[in-house]
């Protein structure tokens, strides 16, 4: 069986439209993960013991279990408790919670990296708790995290095909649907692979470039 270019060209527009769905899931998932990650890290620093333990337990449980089952859980179990979400919303929630657990560790490293003197200065200047976090600590903690966020964004992008299993017609789901009609697997799956490669390879290279630049700047002394 040869690669049928005519057929490939014919399904390409459909797949490119599905790429938009993939993008929406990725961006939505990342925004949620950044919020969830920060919230988890703040809870972990709350100093209230039961909250701290519960947060740590939640993070390690989410990190220790597969995203696929987490998606099934959200998709099949939430409606039983009266929470009926759209497929896209379930997907974004799943990605956001899963990656939020990972990002909370990134926030931790970033916040730990802010020199202690900054906290002391904030206290000395009588800055409020909110002011300390929003204007002093986070603005210094976040920039060094950005390349790590970038890597997780790309990883999440590559995890979006899992959403096909909860019936979201993103790239892979659409390719499956096309293959089911035409009984041709080679062209749809090859195109999906190529679209992923074309999008994630340059992004990964860009992140690496930024990482190296930051490292070089740090080395040259500040």
């Amino acid at each position, binding site marked *: *069986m040869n690669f049928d270019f005519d057929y490939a060209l014919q399904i390409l527009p459909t797949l490119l439209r599905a790429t938009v769905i993939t993008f929406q899931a990725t961006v939505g998932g990342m925004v949620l993960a950044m919020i969830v990650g920060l919230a988890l890290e703040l809870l972990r620093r709350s100093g209230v013991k039961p909250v701290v333990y519960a947060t740590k337990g939640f993070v390690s*449980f989410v990190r*220790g*279990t*597969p*995203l*696929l*089952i*987490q998606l*099934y*859980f959200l998709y*099949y*179990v939430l409606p*039983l408790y009266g929470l009926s979400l759209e497929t896209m919303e379930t997907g974004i929630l799943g990605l956001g919670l899963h990656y939020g657990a990972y990002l909370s560790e990134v926030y931790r490293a970033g916040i730990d990296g802010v020199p202690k003197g900054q906290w002391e200065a904030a206290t000395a200047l009588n800055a409020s708790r909110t002011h300390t976090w929003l204007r002093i600590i986070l603005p210094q903690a976040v920039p060094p995290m950005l390349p790590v966020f970038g890597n997780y964004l790309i990883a999440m992008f*590559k*995890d*979006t*095909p*899992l959403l*096909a*299993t909860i019936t979201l017609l993103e790239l*892979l789901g659409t390719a499956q649907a096309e*293959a089911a009609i035409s009984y041709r*697997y*080679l062209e749809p*799956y*090859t195109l*999906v*692979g190529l679209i*992923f*490669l074309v999008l*994630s*390879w340059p992004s*990964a290279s860009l992140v690496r470039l930024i990482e190296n630049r930051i490292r070089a700047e740090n080395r040259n002394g500040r």
Partner: protein
Amino acid sequence: MNLTVFLPALLKGALVTLEATLLSAAVALVVSVVVGLVRLSRFRLLRGAALVYVEIFRGTSALVQLFYFFFVLPIFGIDLSPMAAGVIALGLNFGSYGSEVVRAAVLNVPRGQHEAAVALNYPPGLAMRRIIFPQALAAMLPPFGNLLIDLLKATSLLSLITIGDLTFAGKSLVQSQGHVTAIYTLVLVFYFVMALMLGRLMQAAERRVPGATAGGGR
């Protein structure tokens, strides 16, 4: 809810998950070491080929690769059993990440060690085997530990190519018995316990390798 039905079925699935994890890990380990060293080869063509492999497998989705091996290869007359297709796909996927670990660890062995090997007239192969690699091993173990746990979780994808792993067992139970919440909770707990056990195992391995940083895993 009937635990006497659920638990044996899930345990059977968990054994398949464990088998798939170990087999894919073996493939990934071999690929990591070979490709990681080839990336440092003197021959540009070999280096280039290894880089292309790494970028392709890191740049696309694991699930897409799995489907490719399962649905597309048979078209070209390569008919693999589902388990073989799954193990090879996951092994190659994780091998691409692992090869970067090997490469970085070898590059991080102090320069003086390479120079000392040359000064002592070690041929390059022997120097790598006896001097460089053993020292790099310590730095490889913690990231390998993380990859192994990621691999365990990634084997859940095999349920989508008809392999009767833990995820598959959970799905079939839900279909025949209902009790969605209980069963998926149990499946999650099973994975979590297996991840914890693998984590402990890797920490024990790290302690046995001289120079490995304690607690560097997770």
